[in-house]
């Protein structure tokens, strides 16, 4: 995982609530056995016309949003299935930051495991950010994870909360399994006790 640094990027806007993982990465693309290459299919059913050409109506196809690393989205983003292909697709497409009022639990977890910072704002903050993008498509926001701060040209700056553990992992780019295996002795000790307390699980 690449360490998350301070980012300055175009902020793309997706003003829809309850965007579900079936839309983020439609299931016809789940059959791959590798981790990469899902960005090409991100939002496939919305993004492309039946003949495979770009759907000009779809917000992320707007020229002003090309190259965006920040996605500003409506409430309850990422609801639906647990597929991690959704954050893979989002990251592979180029987003490393999402800003919304809320996320589905599993999706939220998966974002951090894949180097994506999912920022939670309240709905009035979100409205302000959306208005700023609408007024100035292609506007660039700066995200400073170290100081938990987002700054915008119109001055709609804010700080955000983030779990310190998640923050540390994003900043260092450290893999979760490596972190857990630091405690392998404790796991082994727990297991030994578990075998005594719940012998039927090991029979």
């Amino acid at each position: 995982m690449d360490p998350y640094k301070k980012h300055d990027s175009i902020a793309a806007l997706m003003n829809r609530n309850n965007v579900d993982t079936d839309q983020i990465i439609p299931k016809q693309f789940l059959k791959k056995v590798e981790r990469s290459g899902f960005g090409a299919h991100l939002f496939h059913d919305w993004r492309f016309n039946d003949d495979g050409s770009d759907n000009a109506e779809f917000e992320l196809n707007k020229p002003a949003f090309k190259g965006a690393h920040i996605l500003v989205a409506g409430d309850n983003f990422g609801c639906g299935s647990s597929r991690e292909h959704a954050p893979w697709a989002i990251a592979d497409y180029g987003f490393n930051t999402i800003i919304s009022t809320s996320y589905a639990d599993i999706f939220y977890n998966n974002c951090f495991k894949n180097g994506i910072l999912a920022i939670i704002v309240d709905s009035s903050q979100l409205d302000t950010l959306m208005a700023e993008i609408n007024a100035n498509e292609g506007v660039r926001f700066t995200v400073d994870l170290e100081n938990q701060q987002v700054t915008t040209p119109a001055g709609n700056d804010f700080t955000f909360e983030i779990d310190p553990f998640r923050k540390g992992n994003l900043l260092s780019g450290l893999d979760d399994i490596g972190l857990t295996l630091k405690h392998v002795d404790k796991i082994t000790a727990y297991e030994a006790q578990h075998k005594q307390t719940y012998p039927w699980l090991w029979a």
Partner: protein
Amino acid sequence: MKKTMYEKIWDSHRVVDVEGQAPLIYVDRHLMHEVTSPQAFEGLRLSNRKVRNPHSILATMDHCVPTKNRELPIADPIARKQIEVMAENCLENGLNLYDMKSPNNGVIHVVVPEHGFVHPGMVVVCGDSHTATHGAFGALAFGIGTSEVEHVMATQTLPQQKSKTMLIQVNGKLSKYASAKDVALAIVGKIGTAGGNGHVIEYAGDAIKELSMEGRMTLCNMAIEAGARAGLVAPDEKTYSYLKGREFAPKGENWDLAMAYWQSLPSDADAVFDTIIILDAADIAPQVSWGTSPEQVIGVDGCVPAPESFENEGKRKACESALAYMGLTPNTKITDIPVDLVFIGSCTNGRIEDFRIAAEVAKGTTVAKGVTAIAVPGSYHVKKQAEDEGLDKIFIDAGWEWRDPGCSMCLAMNGDELTKGQRSASTSNRNFEGRQGKGGRTHLVSPAMAAAAAAAGHFVDIRNL
């Protein structure tokens, strides 16, 4: 301190608390299927790590498998690859796999209970959001992502934040034709798809105690549709007698030890929940979803709502776009909505009880003209049991297709799917846009409601049959 069942399971599975980090939780059982695991195995190999406890894993193939002509090679080369890779990974790591040809094969959340692999008080994970199903046994069961699948394989633990607790109490008695599925849908309709976010739900009350184990599985299965991390039902005599004698259930003196532990699990009488929701079972009519989110649901005696009827702007917009996608006009009676395809199956409603109830309704009927009706058992065991009871005959005589097990039209990855504009009555759990095929329109219902719609060609209030 008084504890909820969730807190008891949580406390007994905490391996280590690390300052500033999420606690590590021990995982007793790890369930697997072919779609969310290959990249996890790839990750293990790349980092030179091993599966810590192969006995904790049970794997199946369900999402991509064809439900007919199984003897032929899978036509879709990518699906075929996924199936092959699953078999190789399980072989290489010494894992118990019920492959496509196994008599034990079926949808993961149907197969696992059949073999008694999950018991009360366990922590159970699977790279699949409907893992909550196993909460029916009083196990803390939740869906995880592929990197977590890799994490659990390598460490047998997961860093987890503790959830809040929600008690959903369903009082009274369900009417004859209201099933566990209707309770599940009514709950999502009431609290919304984000209503349970951050919570583990415990279902309680007389109506829940009355449910069979199959019914409890249906109910917990859809906890995720209400946004919850997991759903739980306290174990009781029904749970124990369901488990007794199954392949992976405790035997001999272990059974007594296990029972003592299981009986200690239910929430203490005065345990405190963060949120409490109370429903009256008598108010729950057979449900039909009308939109593209499971919360967009109404009793079969109702009408398609108008966007103006929602005060909340988000819900109004969601209603508008759902109606456009679903091709429905406000105020249409639910019973006037025609269907093109009927699907009975999935990990929500693919168990023997579901086929019994549906067969009771389908018996002596004929599938309406222009309607395709398919029955897809959740496992080969369900299929065989149904055939032993003669249920397959009832469906076939009524004009249904009787298939081999798999996820099938629940998510339409295996070639079984709706075409653009086609409308289904489906016993599955999700009605998202495109879930059953691009442009397909899904209405979620119970098995009895699905069977009645197949015969009539439109939704029917089964209470009037």
